[in-house]
Structures are given as structure tokens and as C-alpha cells.
């Protein structure tokens, strides 16, 4: 379980303001218009930005000021950020080296996760040669292989074609059900939110304006903009 308490961050003109939320082993979708602070929130949770106030608890450990690699959080940024000078296998096993896995243990873990994500045939390929869907799954495998206690996904399927996106929605949901760890998934699309979310966080201008199940937030949206977004069922970015 991840617990954010009064999490704030000031960076230039932008501010994350007093964000408090609790996400247990559920699939949580973070939505909001571009520039609302969704990516900043994920980067703060995984330790790439230091909050100016508040705390982050993961299970029973406070991780607010821990270095990113010591938090036990898997992070998949926008555009996947695979290491282009490595093979898919090296990308996936990268984090295991810092968890003191020996070669055999590392290979076993890589094999398991790549089979789960159906990319075991791509392991020897250079990551530069992958298609969008393949790169997405490789990045997902790299984030999951370290057995994180929380997975952060920043627009993980936004850039994929419709067919691959639908397939990935099923895979993501399935993995979350299997691992039972909280997923925090930033997205722009209503259908993603509808199919994936157990819980929704709505971020607006750096503030967490509403949270709950999709049904709850749809029933009582806190303002007109959110009502419009939730009722129209289209991408937030198209409307703001």
C-alpha cells in the first residue's frame, strides 16, 4: 500500500499542492489535463524529485527521502526510455544486478517475466529495433522484474495503435491482478480509465481535486470541468 500525506513540491512556477491519497493493491488511474502535474507526481513518488513537504509511505516504510533505487518502486516513463545501447535482455536484467542476483537467478527472472509479457523471442534483439508495442512490453518487463512494491506507469499505452492498446489494457489488468501490487497509471483516455481503474485520482493544476472509484467520481464530480470530462468520455487533453 502507498500512502501520500500532504505531498507538496514547488518547482519554478509549478506546484504540487498538498496531495493526500491511499492506494492499496489496486489499479489506480491518474488523470488530468496536460501540465496538471501527473508526471511530476509520479517522479516525486519514485524519488526523482524531492518534495518540499509531506510524506510518502510504502507499506510501512517511509520512503520520502530515500534514493530512487532504494524505494522498491518500478517506474515506466513516457516513451519507455529503454537503454538503446543494450539488448532487450540487458535492459530487463539491468535492475537485478543491483539486487545481487547471480547470473542464473537473473536469467530465470528475465525468462519468467518475458514469458509473461510474451517477449521471450525478443530477448537478444537490440532495444533500438523494437516496435512501439514491443518496446512497451520490454519497458514493462524491466520495471516489473525487480519485484516492485508499487508500479508507476506514465502513459504506458498512449502511443500504441488501437489494437495493441486494447491488448495491452488486458495484459496490464491481468498483471496487476496477479502481482496484487498497487499500479499508478497516468493516462489521457477515458476508455483506459474505464477498463483499468479500480480507483481514479483527478489532478488539476497541481491539486488532487477528486478521488474514488470511477462510479463515485462520475456520480458527484466536484466541478464542471470534471463533469464534462467524465460525461463526454473523451481525452482530457482534447478538451483543455
Amino acid at each position, binding site marked *: 500500500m502507498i500512502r501520500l500525506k500532504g505531498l507538496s513540491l514547488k518547482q519554478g512556477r509549478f506546484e504540487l499542492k498538498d496531495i493526500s491519497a491511499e492506494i492499496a493493491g489496486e489499479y489506480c488511474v491518474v488523470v488530468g489535463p496536460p501540465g496538471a502535474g501527473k508526471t511530476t507526481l509520479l*517522479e516525486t513518488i*519514485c*524519488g*526523482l524529485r524531492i518534495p518540499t513537504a509531506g510524506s510518502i509511505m510504502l507499506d510501512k516504510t517511509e520512503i520520502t527521502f530515500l*534514493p*530512487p*533505487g*532504494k*524505494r522498491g*518502486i*518500478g*517506474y515506466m*516513463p513516457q516513451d519507455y*526510455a529503454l*537503454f*538503446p*545501447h543494450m539488448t532487450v535482455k540487458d535492459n530487463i536484467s*539491468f*535492475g537485478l*544486478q*543491483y*539486487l545481487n542476483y547471480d547470473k542464473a537467478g537473473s536469467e530465470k527472472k528475465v525468462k519468467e517475466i518475458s514469458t509473461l509479457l510474451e517477449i521471450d523471442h525478443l530477448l537478444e534483439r537490440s532495444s533500438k529495433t523494437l516496435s512501439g508495442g514491443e518496446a512497451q512490453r520490454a519497458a514493462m518487463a*524491466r520495471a516489473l522484474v*525487480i519485484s516492485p512494491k508499487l508500479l508507476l506507469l506514465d502513459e504506458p499505452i498512449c502511443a500504441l495503435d488501437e489494437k495493441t492498446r486494447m491488448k495491452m489494457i488486458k495484459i496490464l489488468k491481468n498483471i496487476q491482478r496477479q502481482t496484487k501490487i498497487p499500479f499508478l497509471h497516468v493516462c489521457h483516455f477515458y476508455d483506459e480509465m474505464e477498463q483499468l481503474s479500480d480507483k481514479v485520482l483527478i489532478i488539476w493544476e497541481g491539486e488532487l481535486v477528486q478521488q474514488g472509484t470511477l462510479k463515485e467520481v462520475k456520480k458527484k464530480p466536484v466541478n464542471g470541468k470534471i463533469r464534462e470530462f467524465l460525461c463526454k468520455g473523451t481525452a482530457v487533453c482534447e478538451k483543455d
Partner: protein
Amino acid sequence: MDRIFKTTFLGLLGLYFFMIVLLFAGDVSYISFANFKEAIRTPEIRYAVKLSLITSFITAILSLIVSIPAAYALVRWKFFGSNFIDAVLDLPIIMPPLVIGISLLVFYQTGFGNILKTHGLDLVYTIPGIVVAQFIIACAFCLKTIKTAFEGMDFRLEDVAKTLGCNSWQAFVRITLPLAKKGIVAAGIIAWARAIGEFGPVLVFCGSTRFKTEVLPTTIFLELSIGRIESALAVSLLLVGFSLISLMALRLLVKRGIL
């Protein structure tokens, strides 16, 4: 239309290539092989060759050691005065090299220079002084090249590496350095090439004492000044040969993925 486009671009490439080739072909035709061999066998030229190779190699290594972190800092972090620092670091590129030599000489007449002198760091007319004179110019070129390599880099890759367990040093060594490899090799070549060909600052700051501070460019100058054109040409061709072999070897190593 496409044909004219291609012909124009290739034509200009060929023009410049042949200008350089003809220039050195003229040198080669001017001097006989026997004279060339005789000139480069003289002990003073052999000393200059050795000193040039050693000092330029040290300069290239020092330039890389300083430039890699300096270029990274300039690209990665925006801090107060970074634009001013960047501009100052470009000065050795745009200033006449002779100015660096004069400035180095004058520096050793100032208070801080005198303190260095009294602590055994008097580099005027010394071999370490040659490295310093070469370094100040070569490092600026090296830094500029590495900076360009870093500017094209996606630093989110480092961020991801950190979330996977790396600290900043490990992320830099495992992600950024390999991705900037080609730029760094190019920068090393440029630093070495600048260093081995550096004349003005070396002559002003270290003089050109035979069997002491004489490097290849100063040999060319000395030989020319006493009218030994064939000898000066022999050294020039030697310099061209070293440079061409080194450049080709490094390109080959990069192409084969060894570097």
C-alpha cells in the same frame, strides 16, 4: 533537379578534398625519400617526435578527464552563471593561440604565478609547461565536442537507471558514457590533433630549446628559419602521417565497435 543537387554537394566535397590532397602531394613531390629519411634520422628531430607524441597524448588524456565532467555539468544542470562560464570556456577556441602563450607567460609574473613558482611549479620553459600550453587550447575543443554529444542525450534514461538501483555515478558510467562514446572518441582525437599541432603558445611559453622543449611544430619553425626547407617539409610530412594514421585507426576502431 536531384542530379544537380547531388552533383553540387559532391562537387564541393571533392573540391575541398582535392585542395588538401594536392597541397600535401606538392610537399611529397618536393622532397626525395632519401632526404626525408636523412632529415627524420637526426637526433634533434627524433627527440622532437618523441616529445610531441608524449605531450600530445598526455594533453589528450587530461583534456578528456576534465572535459567529460565539465561538459556534463554544463548540459545537465542549469545554475547561476552557467552561460557566462560556457562563454569563457569558448575563449581559447576563438582567441589567437599566441594570446594563450603570452597570457601564460604573464601569469607567471603575477602574484599567484609567483606563489606557484616558489612551490616548485614554475612551468616556464619546461616540458610540463608544453602540456599546460597545449591543454588550455585542446581542452576547449574537447569540451565543445563532448558538450554537443551530451546535448543530444535523453537524461531520462539516467533517471530510469536510478529507479532500477543505480546511484548517480553508476547511471553516468553505465548509461550516459556509453551513449556518448562516439562524441568522446571524436573529442579525444580533436584534443590530440590540436595538441600535436600547437605552435604559438608552446613557442612563447616554453621556447624551443633543442633536446629540451622542442616539439614538431617548433622544429618546423626552427628549420624554416635557418633555410632548411627540406628538413622542415620532412617534419611536416611526418606530422601529417602521424595524424592521418591515428585518425584512420581510431575511425576503424569506432566502426568495428571496439571503442
